[in-house]
């Protein structure tokens, strides 16, 4: 499923290799309530400069909530209850996101991390023009720019995503779905941020437009060198565009690996289930499978592996011991007893 022009060439072009731009350590998020919903549970991920990190999982697995935690966009009743999110600037500055507040937080937003929201129709203010909304970004973050400069830059951004700059005067409802998403992407790149978080940016679009937008993102990323956190429930799409990906289940990361490895030899039974739930266009014809059952109630305390009730390879330890996210020798981090050397006898049977 990985195109031949895949990840390797990209790394070369950005040339920034492996240095970190964002690190999340043990992040937990809770939705308050009479029984709090623990939506994200001790998630640790790293984002390298210039890479595309994919986060995939069923709806309700906590991937969007986690993205909101990364950008400090959680609102009550959601709250980050534990963990640290650190941003590493090019010039060596380290920013603890939790410590930001007030004007410093506002300044950080969009300058360093911007976001592309799922539905472009909803992410644009319906009653003001596109140009005016782009203008707001520059007015707030670049007070030195005069009106002409702001307009020129906005036009330039539109051109960059392939939209006629005259569209600055248009209102969101006058644009097609694909155009709106391009506008939203142009806005996300307005201040040339280091990181763009994309929350299901193409889910609401039809397949052809989806393809166009993805190509656009690829091109811009190669050109501008920003890093992307790409969130979707569509594993096929992620395998194609991301360098590494994290599979989330029940608020936890269950597998965290380079994309091509996940495509060829997924370790976690849940990842395998996800892979089997879409057709491989180039591979052999095979039967399609969903994953039977539903994710657990995140308000409950989870005992054992949260995936155990739905897992086809479930065995004794799964129901009692929660598997830690740990890399087996020569492998990558996975939270599954099958790959725990302590249970080696079983892992060979459970494999593919």
């Amino acid at each position: 499923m990985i195109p031949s022009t895949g990840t390797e060439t990209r790394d070369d072009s950005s040339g920034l290799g492996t240095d970190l731009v964002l690190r999340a350590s043990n992040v937990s998020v809770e939705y308050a309530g009479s029984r709090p919903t623990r939506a994200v549970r001790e998630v640790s991920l790293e984002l390298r400069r210039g890479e595309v990190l994919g986060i995939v999982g069923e709806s309700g697995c906590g991937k969007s909530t986690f993205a909101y935690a990364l950008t400090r966009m959680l609102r009550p009743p959601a709250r980050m209850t534990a963990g640290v999110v650190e941003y590493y600037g090019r010039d060596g500055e380290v920013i603890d996101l939790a410590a930001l507040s007030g004007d410093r937080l506002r300044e950080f937003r969009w300058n360093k991390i911007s976001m592309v929201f799922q539905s472009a129709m909803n992410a644009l203010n319906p009653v003001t023009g596109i140009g005016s909304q782009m203008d707001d970004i520059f007015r707030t973050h670049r007070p030195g720019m005069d009106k002409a400069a702001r307009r020129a830059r906005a036009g330039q951004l539109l051109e960059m995503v392939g939209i006629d700059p005259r569209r600055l005067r248009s209102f969101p409802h006058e644009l097609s779905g694909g155009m709106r998403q391009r506008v939203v992407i142009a806005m996300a790149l307005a201040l040339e941020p280091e990181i763009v978080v994309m929350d299901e940016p193409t889910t609401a679009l039809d397949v052809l437009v989806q393809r166009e937008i993805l190509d656009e993102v690829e091109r811009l990323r190669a050109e501008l060198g920003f890093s992307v956190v790409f969130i979707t429930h569509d594993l096929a799409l992620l395998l194609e565009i991301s360098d590494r990906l994290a599979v989330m289940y029940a608020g936890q990361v269950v597998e965290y690996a380079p994309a091509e490895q996940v495509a060829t030899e997924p370790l976690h039974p849940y990842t395998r289930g996800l892979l089997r739930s879409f057709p491989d266009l180039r591979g052999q014809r095979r039967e399609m499978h969903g994953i039977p059952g539903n994710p657990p109630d995140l308000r409950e305390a989870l005992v054992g592996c949260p995936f155990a009730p739905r897992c086809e390879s479930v065995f004794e330890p799964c129901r009692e011991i929660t598997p830690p996210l740990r890399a087996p020798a020569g492998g990558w981090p996975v939270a599954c007893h099958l790959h725990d050397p302590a249970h080696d006898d079983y892992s060979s049977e459970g494999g593919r």
Partner: protein
Amino acid sequence: MPATVTTQLVEAPAEAAVRGSGVLRTALRSRRLIAGLCIVGFFVLLGVVGPLFFGNPNLVGTVQHAGPSAAHWFGTTDIGQDVFAQTVVGARATLEIGAAAGLIATVVSVVIGIGGGYAGGWVDEALALLSNVALVIPTLPLVIVVAAFVKNTGLLPTVFVIALTSWAASARVLRGQTLSIRNRDYVLASKALGEPVWRIVLVEIMPNELPIIVSQYLFAMIFAILAQAGLAFLGLQSPDLLTWGNTLYFAQNAQALSSGDWWWFAPPGLCIALLGAGLALINFGLDELLNPRLRVYREPRARRAARADGTETGQ
């Protein structure tokens, strides 16, 4: 998308609670709903039971213009009537008019709004035009003029006149809802299966609009009580009918205001306001219950204080 996040993670438990046995518990958590139900319940009880304890509240007494006392809790009128008795007894007719006029207005709006919306075509166009016109033509002046022309101001005419001038806004809302529901898959499926029209409207469409209908009914009731009070105050209601509005009319006529008899005009108005507020609170409570977006999360005080400087959202 935060809406999605909320939908998935926060509403899910709430929804489950509404469906399951926890309906009551969820409802009981809405302080507004509770307060509203208590207020309205109190007045309903007053209207049902209250009159039994008082003979004729219009009985003339010897103690005139007396302020509140142990004998006359709300004082007396210029001819010695007990204002407390009048207020308690007046609750019944006031509630009756409110409930009945509200009901008629709601039925009319359901027929015109849902009927038109479902029928479509020129029927819908005509009914929509009718509601829109009824909405912009000032109703109370019309009611006043009609009431003056008709000169029949008993309970029933009052109810009908008020009802027929207050259905339009609600009909418009219901029509809009019906238009959107009409084309949903399950309605189209029922149609394809050849279900009769009445069944589709009553079973597939109406239940989905029930929250709106209930809310519109509560608003219609508030409007009816206010309109009735206004009409009575202008002397356009039979003086034999004891309502809070009529009490105010007599108070104004006897210049209770300039002679300083505040106890005469204060209770009926306050009762109208309280009853109206009670109905509005029920409405808000139901709204919060059924529309989770309106539900406001309140942080525990300790936590709010702890991070008083930097807020999570940067507001």
